[in-house]
């Protein structure tokens, strides 16, 4: 198992290189000049070029990339072209918000989705149709639009929860929770119904197997039958779906953080991209890639936990 993990980690290194090179190329081909934003408008082309040179942006893209890699290997991700703060400190400020957002949304997705799916599998009928309809609707509704609707009714009209901002956990736990509720609901809406549908289908398939009928005839309680035997056997596709939704939610933070003005990685990426702040973009993409790799590893580990045969083959 350890060897398997090490192999996966080693395979992730070339992935990081490929992602960082692609990011570099994409930023390079998009028109825009950080010097224009830094200096303002009243300057000559030569003055903009001089600043670009000072910032190292006139060097060939390969050289720029090498400088960045050299920095990474020496433990620094460079300095933001605009705030003059190190990229690591900017990311450190932003990471907790995004991590809490994704963890919260994943928890809500899994708990609510599995509960709904179980109920739908057991009782079927109208509840199953409701889950189906809800999943289609939430897939069709963009999460930023849902966020705006929630803000209008929950925050503006009812004034029950804040419409914007993030309160750090250490500063005020109650405020932290309140600041995350609407963003988490917005981010997890698609996942909840998606997992519910996945759970319902997987459970229906497992419940139709012979071993379930045998266990039922052996007199196992309904609760034990469903939660200990059926759900565990149906878990792998559910975990796979939950992992995929978590990764998708990471991307969803970009819009949700904009709507709720959260100081997270998503809003940082948007800002850095519009500013052509290459060190910040590269740093953020690196962090996002590492999170995705970590999530994939967690999913693989959960397979091994859920199914002993995976442990043997790994």
């Amino acid at each position, binding site marked *: 198992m350890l060897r398997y993990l090490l192999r996966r980690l080693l395979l992730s290194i070339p992935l990081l290189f490929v992602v960082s090179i692609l990011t570099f190329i994409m930023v390079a081909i998009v028109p825009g000049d950080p010097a224009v934003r830094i200096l303002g408008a009243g*300057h000559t082309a030569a003055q903009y070029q001089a600043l670009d040179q000072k910032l190292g942006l006139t060097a060939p893209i390969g050289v720029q990339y090498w400088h960045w890699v050299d920095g990474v290997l020496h433990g620094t991700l460079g300095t*933001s072209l*605009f*705030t*003059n703060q190190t990229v690591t400190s900017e990311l450190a400020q*932003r990471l907790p918000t995004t991590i809490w957002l994704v963890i919260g949304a994943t928890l809500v997705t899994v708990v609510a989705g599995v509960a709904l799916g179980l109920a739908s599998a057991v009782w079927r009928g109208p509840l199953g149709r409701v889950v189906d309809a809800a999943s289609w609707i939430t897939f069709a509704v963009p999460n930023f639009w849902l966020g705006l609707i929630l803000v209008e009714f929950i925050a503006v009209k009812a004034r029950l929860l804040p419409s914007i901002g993030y309160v750090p956990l250490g500063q005020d736990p109650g405020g932290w929770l309140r600041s995350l509720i609407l963003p988490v609901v917005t981010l997890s809406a698609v996942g909840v119904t998606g997992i519910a549908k996945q759970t319902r289908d997987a459970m229906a398939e497992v419940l139709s197997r012979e071993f379930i009928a045998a266990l039922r005839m052996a007199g196992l309680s309904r609760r034990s039958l469903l939660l200990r035997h059926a759900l565990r056997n149906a878990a792998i596709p559910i975990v796979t779906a939950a992992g995929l939704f978590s990764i998708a939610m990471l991307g969803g933070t970009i819009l949700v953080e904009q709507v709720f003005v959260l100081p997270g990685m998503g809003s940082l990426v948007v800002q850095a991209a519009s500013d052509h702040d290459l060190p910040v973009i590269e740093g953020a993409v690196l962090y996002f890639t590492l999170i995705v790799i970590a999530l994939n590893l967690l999913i693989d580990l959960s397979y091994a936990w859920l199914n002993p045969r995976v442990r043997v083959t790994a």
Partner: protein
Amino acid sequence: MPARYPFTLRAHARRLGRPASLLAIATLAAGTLAACGGVSNGGGSSTGTASATAAASAAPTGITGDTLTLQFNEPVSTNPALEGTSESDVVFGAIDYDSLIYQLGNGQYVPDLATSWSYAPGSKNEVFNLTLRQNVHFSDGSLLTASSVVNSLEYFAKADGPQAGYLATLASAKATGTYTVQLTFSAPEPDLPFLLSQYQDIGQIIGPTGLANPKTLTTTSDGTGPYVLSAAQSVANSQYVFTLNSHYWNPAAVHYKQVVVKVITDATTALSAAESGQVDALLSLPSSAQQSAKSGNLTTFAQPFSIASLILMGRSDPKSPLSNLKVREAINDAVDRSALAQGLGGGNSVPTDEFAIPGTTGYDPAAASTYSYNVATAKSLLAQAGYAGGFKLAVLDTLALDANGDIGAALKTELAAVGIDVTITETPSPAQFIPAALSKQYDAVIWPLSQNGAGFPYAIQFAMAPFTNAFGTTSTELNSLMATAGALSGSAASAAYEKVDDYLTDNAWFVPLFSLGATLAVAPGVANVQAPSVDNTTIDPVAPIASLSWYPSSS
């Protein structure tokens, strides 16, 4: 060396394309009255005294509220020497840095760190003396002296930030006493009171700790202002928290325990935040959101700001038809400014064919009707110039300033009526627009004029920036007129700047279209918000005078 008078792209991008509300008309009128009454807003003010008068008498003294939360866009930097200009300085600079001079909303200058100032007699606006307030301390605890001011200005000059150009002609900054400073320039600088006010950065004095390690100024601050930027509570480009400066020299003028600036760029989100009580004031509000703001129980304020224009850069390109004065006059006659103002300015804008905004220094009422909408006259002028069959005109536009390309589309239609075939190239933002404009591939650009509430030289520099003057128009006559005006003060300077305005109007370098205003919205919980009546000033939440600072309406 950077050019003089740069400006903040984001601030301007946000403001243009935003029609003024009816309040703008009122404030415009107020600005005109103020100008007639001799109030100087940069063109001619030469002296200041400590006789500031209170604008409102009911203001409390000292702290009565907890947190004032403002909405704004992200700053260029929180280091004043690397910051932009205009409103961005007020929001991110004036909260924690006092300026040498304070400009009121009506354009008058009153003391802040300097208690008095004047140009040296006979110096032709080249030598400027200031006397500093005593017993003022920076947030690091050190005393403000003349040396502090000299050191701060010298840092600004070498920091190579957007405003370093303001000090391009500074020959020397000398401490002539413990609390007296003399600035000597190699050319007339008639707008120093404005340049040293809170609306620019160079007058915001940085303390010795900050100057010793300027990198710290991107996370915290070292000024003499009422607040200090809190590194621990702030997140770059998201939220800036300013806590009380325990060393502040005038606690009576401080009405909130802290000020928070939230970076919110989306208007809908900003409005929701204000309506749900999370933000007290929206300092960047697009015109399309004004009605929503009013229905959301917010109060909106407006002030004059700039002029939507077509800048005829090809005037200096011998290959361009625009090098012919009659062609430029024809274009000025071919546009229906009233219709454009009504259609694109939201019905609240004022049509204008002059370089200067009505009510500001240099505006010449007599030149107001130099050009009138007349297609026949325009065609006749084109025929006289040898372009009876029309010609092709390449125009560059940016959607960041011309929402949906509306101005470009309207100009294309109007100029087609006189035979000019306009090809519009749209760029998404100034970051793409500026390099394209500098490429000399375009005869004209759609870009705003003015900000001349900051002083006529500022407006000229604004209009003659390299990217709006790609073919390098120079004029000995213009330089001479500017030099003459720059060495004068008061009404003599105003009259001299009117001649500059006339020169620019007669030579038709530009096609001014209609004036635009800037707006903001304030929640009911905030009192004492006063709309400026001159352009290029921003509503200022903090002030060195108790009666001018905002305070909670419940106090």
